[in-house]
């Protein structure tokens, strides 16, 4: 059974838009929350500028609990919370909520790992010049780690495309939903092919943008 492409194309375009919205919105929210958590993780480490054992341990435990849960299971298991927060468990907005939570913790780890690679001497030099902890966060930590950070965020956005497809299969909309309903349940190989090609293009585009940006920032 074949779809009628003339009426189907707009559906594909719409789904592509939904996927893009899911990925971009999650990337924005996830980056804001994730970068904040990552910075907090880093500065509360032992011997760091705002050392705080309690905060550091708490954040670590939360991340370590949530990160290993497969996304599809996480998605389903917090659906009650999603309903309370978003009002529904179906559609793009309902997918963005769990995706943002997972992305935040992935981003937090990426950020923390990039910050750890900053030479502690540079942070110390800023302290010795009389910079406050907040000042150090915004004028030393973020700028010094920005290049690798953007590569890390690129990596995250590629996994978000993957997550969005997973969310799509359980009612989240987007290309995953199209692939599932038309390609899988109705055995339409051409629909499958089109969605796969669009996903590949998205991933390549994300990678290209990320690489270009980070190269600009790292001046290499």
């Amino acid at each position, binding site marked *: 059974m074949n779809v009628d492409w003339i009426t189907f194309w707009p559906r594909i375009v719409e789904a592509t838009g939904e996927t893009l919205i899911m990925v971009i919105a999650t990337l924005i929210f996830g980056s804001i929350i994730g970068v904040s958590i990552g910075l907090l993780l880093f500065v509360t480490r032992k011997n760091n500028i705002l050392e705080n054992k309690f905060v550091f341990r708490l954040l670590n435990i939360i991340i370590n609990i949530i990160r290993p849960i497969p996304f599809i299971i996480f998605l389903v298991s917090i659906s009650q919370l999603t309903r309370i927060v978003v009002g529904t468990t179906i559609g793009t907005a309902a997918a963005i909520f769990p995706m943002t939570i997972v992305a935040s913790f992935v981003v937090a780890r990426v950020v923390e790992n990039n910050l750890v690679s900053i*030479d502690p001497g540079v942070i110390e030099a800023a302290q*010795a*010049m009389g910079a406050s902890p907040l000042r150090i966060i915004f004028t030393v930590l973020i700028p010094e780690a920005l290049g690798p950070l953007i590569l890390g965020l690129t990596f995250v956005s590629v996994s978000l495309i993957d997550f969005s497809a997973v969310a799509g299969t359980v009612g989240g909309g987007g290309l995953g939903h199209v692939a599932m309903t038309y390609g899988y349940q109705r055995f339409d190989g051409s629909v499958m092919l089109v969605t796969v090609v669009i996903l590949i293009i998205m991933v390549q585009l994300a990678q290209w943008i990320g690489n270009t940006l980070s190269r600009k920032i790292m001046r290499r």
Partner: protein
Amino acid sequence: MIEFKNVSKTFSLGKREVHAVKDVSLSVEKGEIFGIIGFSGAGKSTLLRLVNMLERPSSGSVFIQDIDVNTLSPKDLRTQRRNIGMIFQNFNLLNSRTVAGNIAYPLKLTSISKQEVNRRVKELLEFVGLSDKAKDYPDQLSGGQKQRVGIARALATSPDILLCDEATSALDPDTTADILRLLKKVNRDFGITILLITHEMHVIQTICDKVAVMENGEVIESGDVFDTFTNPQHSVTQRFIRSVQQDLPSTHILKEWRAGGGGKLYRVIFKGAVANDPVLSMITRKHNVDFNIVYGSVRELQEKLFGNLLVSFIGEPIAIQNALTELGTIVAVEEVVENEC
């Protein structure tokens, strides 16, 4: 200017305790260049970092212009830190900022205007001789140039004190000499008190007025550089001094000298003004004794001369004895004994 009063610092690594600094009392006067020397792990960096409270003392106090820095509020400490520049072995420049950006960084922490920041950066770039590198990034610079940026950055807020943590240890000898000259200039032109730490006696010899020798967290000897060099008390100090001035020829030469029937060797030490007088020649002529300088040097230390010569005397034993006695009233003379080498 800076005073350490019975300062100790202990780090706990799990159950193990490291006594990095033990009961150190030192006082650094305004306008001097004070050097702390010691082998790696002696506690030098920890001591230096106690001055701007990058490290807090476990006991004792550090005073800067009579203020106990450990009692300052976080805000007052940040203000105080702007009065204490610091440079590092690894430069610790911000790689995401240009040379000008690095120098401007400490200025932007203060409330001065943008024009004033630019003017000051330009002035500092000129002072360290890097005006043409303003727009370069640190990774485009040589080690010496990076340290110049570090110095300019440390001087940006016109501090009274400059702390140097092994500032030349990552540099080659020529560049080291350049940077030491620049530090001397900083001290002379601006009257900035410099507290530096190093493991190289050469650095102490070249620019310091005062020196303290550290070992295992303790200051084992301290004083005027000239006095310490010419009359070291502690064996560690002697080892450091030997690293810059060999005061004995090699065992090979000494053995040959003795095998060839060479007589007793005496170490004759001249300090300061006496090095200008022909003491050796006058006294030996008077006693009708010949002398032979086997080994040694006369060098300048803190604008004073310091001679350290190995001399053998030839003549009647009694005449030699008299000459030695008279010589001993003017300069330091001691016999070089076999096991010294």
